[in-house]
C-alpha cells in the first residue's frame, strides 16, 4: 500500500556549515600562535586553587590582621572590605553621572533625529553621530579625550561613560520615539501647537516610560564599564581590582570581587524592579518589549 516517499532534502548545507564552523575554530586556535594551549588542561585546577584562597580571605575574621605580602601596616581584613566598598561606591557614582550626562544629552538629540519628529535635515547628522559613538569603545574616549583633559580622576571616567552613553541611548530613544502612535501628534498639531508643544504634549508622554527604562538599563551597563575605566586610571573599583589581582593578593581579591558581585547584583535588582514599575506600573508597554528594554548590554546594535 505504500506510496512513493518524497526524498529527504540534502543535508549538505547543514553539514558544510558545521564543518565550516569547526574549520574556523581550528584555524583560529592554530593562528593564536602566542597561546600556550598546553597550559589549558591545568587551568581548572589552578583556578579552583585561587578560588579557595579567595574564599579564605572572605571567610577570615574582619578584625584579624592578614599576613604575607602586600599588607600595609595596621591593615585588617575589615580595612580591605571597607576599601572595596568605598571604591565600589566611587564606581557607581561614576556610572550614575555618566548615565545622567548621556541621558540628558541624548534625549533632546533623539527628537531632532527621529523620522517622525525631526524638524529638519539635521537628523542624518545626528544619526551619524549616534552610530559613530556606538562603534568606538568607551576606553577610546577615555584615553584620547578625557584623561588628557581631566587627568587620572573619576571625572574623566564619568565623562567618558557619558559621551559613550549618548550613542546607545540616542539610538534607543529615537527608536521609541518612532514607535509612538502618530494619532495624538496629529491632533495636537491640528490644534495649532508649536513643534516644542507637540513634543511635550503628544510625544514625550508616550515614550518617556520606555526611555527611562533604557536609562536605568544603561546605568547597569555603565557600572560594569566603569570598572574598565578604573583599570586605565580613572579610579574606583577597577583600580583596586587591577592592583590586587595584578599583585596576586588572592585573599584580598576574593574580598574585593565579592563586594563587586554583591553590590552590582543589588543595584541590578533595584534597577530592574524600578524598570518593571515604570513600564508596567504607570503605563502599559506598547510593544512586547516589557521590562527588558534592550536585552543586550554594552552595544552597537540593538
Amino acid at each position, binding site marked *: 500500500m505504500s506510496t512513493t516517499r518524497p526524498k529527504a532534502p540534502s543535508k549538505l548545507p547543514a553539514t558544510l556549515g558545521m564543518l565550516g*564552523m569547526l574549520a*574556523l*575554530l581550528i584555524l*583560529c*586556535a592554530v*593562528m*593564536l600562535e*602566542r*597561546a*600556550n*594551549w598546553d*597550559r589549558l588542561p591545568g*587551568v581548572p585546577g*589552578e*583556578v579552583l586553587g*585561587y578560588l579557595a584562597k579567595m574564599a579564605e580571605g572572605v571567610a577570615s575574621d574582619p578584625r584579624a590582621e592578614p599576613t604575607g605580602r602586600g599588607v600595609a601596616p595596621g591593615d585588617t581584613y575589615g580595612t580591605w572590605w571597607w576599601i572595596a566598598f568605598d571604591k565600589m561606591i*566611587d564606581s557607581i*557614582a*561614576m556610572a*550614575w*553621572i555618566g548615565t545622567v550626562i548621556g541621558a540628558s544629552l541624548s534625549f533632546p538629540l533623539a527628537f531632532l533625529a527621529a523620522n517622525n519628529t525631526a524638524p529638519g535635515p539635521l537628523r542624518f547628522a545626528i544619526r551619524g553621530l549616534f552610530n559613530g559613538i556606538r*562603534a*568606538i*569603545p568607551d*576606553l*577610546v574616549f577615555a*584615553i*584620547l*579625550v578625557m584623561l*588628557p*583633559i*581631566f587627568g587620572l*580622576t*573619576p*571625572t574623566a571616567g*564619568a565623562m567618558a561613560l557619558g559621551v559613550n552613553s549618548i550613542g546607545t541611548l540616542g539610538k534607543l530613544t529615537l527608536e521609541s520615539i518612532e514607535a509612538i502612535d502618530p494619532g495624538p501628534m496629529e491632533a495636537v498639531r491640528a490644534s495649532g501647537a508649536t513643534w516644542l508643544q507637540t513634543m511635550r504634549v503628544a510625544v514625550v508622554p508616550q515614550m518617556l516610560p520606555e526611555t527611562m527604562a533604557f536609562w536605568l538599563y544603561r546605568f547597569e551597563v555603565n557600572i560594569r564599564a566603569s*570598572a*574598565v575605566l578604573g*583599570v*586605565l586610571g580613572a579610579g574606583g573599583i*577597577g583600580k583596586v*581590582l*587591577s592592583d590586587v*589581582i*595584578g599583585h*596576586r593578593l588572592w585573599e584580598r581579591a576574593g574580598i574585593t*570581587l565579592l563586594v*563587586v*558581585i554583591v553590590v552590582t*547584583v543589588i543595584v*541590578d535588582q533595584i534597577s530592574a524592579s524600578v524598570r518593571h514599575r515604570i513600564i508596567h*506600573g*504607570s503605563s502599559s508597554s506598547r510593544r512586547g518589549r516589557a521590562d527588558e528594554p534592550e*536585552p*543586550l*548590554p*554594552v*552595544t*552597537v*546594535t540593538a
Partner: protein
Amino acid sequence: MSAPAPTRTARPRKPPPGPSAILGVVSIVGITIFAVTWINFSLAPLYTNLTGGWVVIREALQPDWGYLRWWCPADDAGCNPTNRIRLWKALLETFNIAVLASMAGCVLAMGMSLLASSVSAPKPVVRVVKVFLSAVRSLPDIAYALIFVAAMSPGPLPGVLALTIFNMGIVAKLTSESIDAVNPGPIEAADAAGATRWQRARTAIVPQVLPNYLSYSLYVFELNIRASAVIGFVGAGGIGTIINLEFNRGNYDRLSAIVIVIFVVVVALDLTSQTLRKRLV
C-alpha cells in the same frame, strides 16, 4: 446669547502628583548630588586644562598613517619588518580570540540556559543556576581578564578564557529568557509521547530558540571585538596590547590611527553580523 449659561458646578481639584513620581524625582536629584560630591566631579578642567588636553587631542587629530604600513619603505634603512607587522598580527589575534571565546562561551551557554529555565529544568536547579549566572554577569570582562592573566601568564589564552566566561553569562541569560518564552505546546506533545528531559530539550525546546540563540552568539562576537581592545590592556592579548604600549609611550598620533582601524573593523563586522542576524530571526 439666549441660551442660559449652565449652572457652574464645583471644579474637582487637580490631584497631587503620586508619591512614586515625587520619590523618583527626589531620588534622581539626590543621587546625582551625592555622586557629584562623592567623586568631586567637576567640569572646571574643561576651561583650566583645555590647553593641556588640547595638545593630546591635536596630536590625535593627525593620525600617523605611516604606522599602519605593514611593509618597510625602501628609503627607510632603520625600519624593522617585525615591528611593522606587529599591529596587524595583534588585530588578527583579536579576531581569533573573539571567535574562540564566542564559540566556547556559547556552547557552555546553551547548557547553562537549559538549566536556568523552569521550562527545561527542575525548580531548585533553576534557582541555583540563576544566582550563579547573575554573579557571573555582575563582573565586567576586565575582571576575568585580570584573574586569568594573574593565574596563568600574559598572552591570548587568558583573554580567550576571560571572554568565554563573560560571553557565557550574557548568552545564557538571554537564551534562558527565550526558553521561558517558548511555545509550551510542543513540549507538552513531547511529554505526551514519552520523551525524556533530554529528548524534550532536543526536539521541542532547542529548535524553537535556535534562531535567537544564534543571533545572541553573533551579538557577543561583536562585543568581543570591542572587548579585546580592553582586555589587552591588562595583558590578555589582542589589539589592546598595542594600544597599551602606545598609550604608555604617549604616541597619540599612532593611537588615533589604531582607533580608526578598530572603528573600520568593528563597523564592517557589525554590518556583516547584523545582516546575518536579520536573516536568522
